[in-house]
């Protein structure tokens, strides 16, 4: 999965403005908060990161070991894998302003 952004990064060299965003959404089953979080995340990404983002959904109920590896406590959590540094957002992403600050998305 991590190969994909690397491939995409190559063309980014010519255009440094273009960034690749890999966002991981950790959920635990289909809870209302998780569903809301995914919807909110998609919405924000479409608006600010259209065409350069990728969302991975990790269900901890299926992969409980990953919770330890990625230091996940709260559900839902969004982890910005790329671009570095790693950033974490917890909650259902209802507060768009905070999401933008948290993901460090520069708004025009």
């Amino acid at each position, binding site marked *: 999965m991590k190969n994909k952004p690397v491939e995409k990064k190559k063309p980014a060299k010519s255009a440094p403005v273009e960034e690749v965003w890999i966002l991981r959404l950790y959920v635990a089953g289909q809870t209302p*908060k998780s569903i809301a979080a995914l919807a909110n995340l998609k919405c924000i990404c479409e608006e600010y990161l259209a065409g350069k983002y990728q969302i991975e959904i990790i269900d901890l109920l299926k992969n409980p070991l990953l919770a330890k590896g990625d230091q996940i406590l*709260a559900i839902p959590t969004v982890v910005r894998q790329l671009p570095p540094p790693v950033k974490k957002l*917890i909650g259902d992403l209802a507060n768009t302003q905070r999401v933008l600050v948290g993901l460090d998305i520069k708004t025009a």
Partner: protein
Amino acid sequence: MAKLQQAIVLKKCPTGIRGFDEISSGGLPKGRPTLICGSAGCGKTVLAMEFLLRGAIQYKEPGVFVSFEETPKDLTQNFASLGYDLNDLIARKLIAMDHVYIERSEIEETGEYDLEGLFIRLAYAIDSIKAKRIVLDTIESLFSGLTNVGILRAELRRLFHWLKDRGITAVITGESGEKSLTRYSLEEYVADCVILLDFRIREQISTRRLRIIKYRGSSHGADEYPFLIEKTGISILPLTSLLLDHTVSNEHISSGIPRLDNMLAGNGFYRGSTILISGTAGTGKTSFATKFVEAACKRGERCLYLAFEESTNQIIRNMKSIGTDLAPWVKKGRLKFHASRPSLYGLEMHLVTIHKLIVEFKPKIVIVDPVSNLTAVGTPVEVKSVLTRLFDYLKASHVTTLLTDLIHFGSSLERTNEEISSLIDAWILLRDIEINGERNRGLYILKSRGMAHSNQIREVLLSDRGIELVDVYLGPGGVLTGSARATQEAKEKEEARDYQYEVDRRTHEAERKRKVLEAKIEGLRSEFDMESEELHIISADEKKRHKVGIANRSEMARLRKADRSTDSRKKGRKRT
């Protein structure tokens, strides 16, 4: 009945921590969370860790250690400091570990959330080793990592219910707060058992204490119990039961000084009693103690000598000066010295060390020289509490304890700094007697429970022949000791000699007089004998003459044939 019911209602989860299971009557509540709170560095993590380790190793109950603060590397080192190999335990599936890391600066809260992720991690760790115990150290780090306290509190409540439902015995640690037991009032959630650890420093010496604040559905000791963190973990010292029900011995043991035994009703001390030798500096307390030790070693008993003032070698060297050689006994293993500075560690640590030594060495005699040096380490109340426990323990084990107590100049002689006089069975007071510019040592027996002891003062003479007790001079001049006593004795001796001489002289005189008189009597008697002899001869003569006279007269009368007067008869007789 009530007890039976309690046993059914509340099962205990033994911790295996020395002393803890005693004061909590069996351990922590099984299947319930327990809160351990206390300030930084008071031993919360160690207590929790030991609970887990002993559970895993002694009671075959695997445990999960969830650390919110320390990294796995730190934890491995911490476990190693208690003598356990964490990696090995993890490999054997006895311990599982999870490090929960939260950094507020890396987290942005964007709306509603829950801590399901934490639950999943805990569930995974618990299931992976079928854990029965869990430690959350310290869960309140969540409060510093997450801002939404409302959610956190709800989730914590859910967490503890969840742990209870799973029947996991949990230990949660929490830092002490200013107004509440913990900074984030964890005690509100963990209502079953709350243990408070405390870390106090007095006179630069620290003492750790543990108190069970609350234990729902169980009886527990309510006191503050001092505890120690040793190489092997925590050990808590429950104050010994104050029931004075230990069995006593009627056996007597010698004090090592025959004269002193004499003073003690002729037999010495009772075995298992607590003996105090108190006195000002240089009165020979240690000498008495070592004599006692030597006597015990000769009887083949083991002695433990706790020296708080002098080093082992110094004591051995010094005691040679009074003819006591302890070195062979040390070599033979009958005598063990434990020399340490009292301020080396806290009182409780001393107690534990002594405890340990006694358990290991199994002595019959324990010497504490001097017990007064322990006062420097704590308050009188603490010292008394520690000593009470020590003496009780020693008494219960039938160990005879001899303490020396240094009385400082100016303080009352018949009082100990440690207020331990009531714990003492036999009390010997050594004191300086200062007369005529010299100091001498006097010995009294202040008390000796259960025996008719002497009430007399004795003078103590220390020489290379050992300790001698001599009678002091008691006379019109008062109590005299030392050279004054010697002078007085010499004087008396001289007086006695003079008197004897006088008596002899008079006896001789009388004898002589008697002899003279006897001689006189003899002379008189012989004179008398002579007289009576004379008298006898005269009378015999007279008789004869009388006879002859009569014959003559009758012859003459016959011849004259006439009566004559007696005068003429006499004349006529005289003429013939």
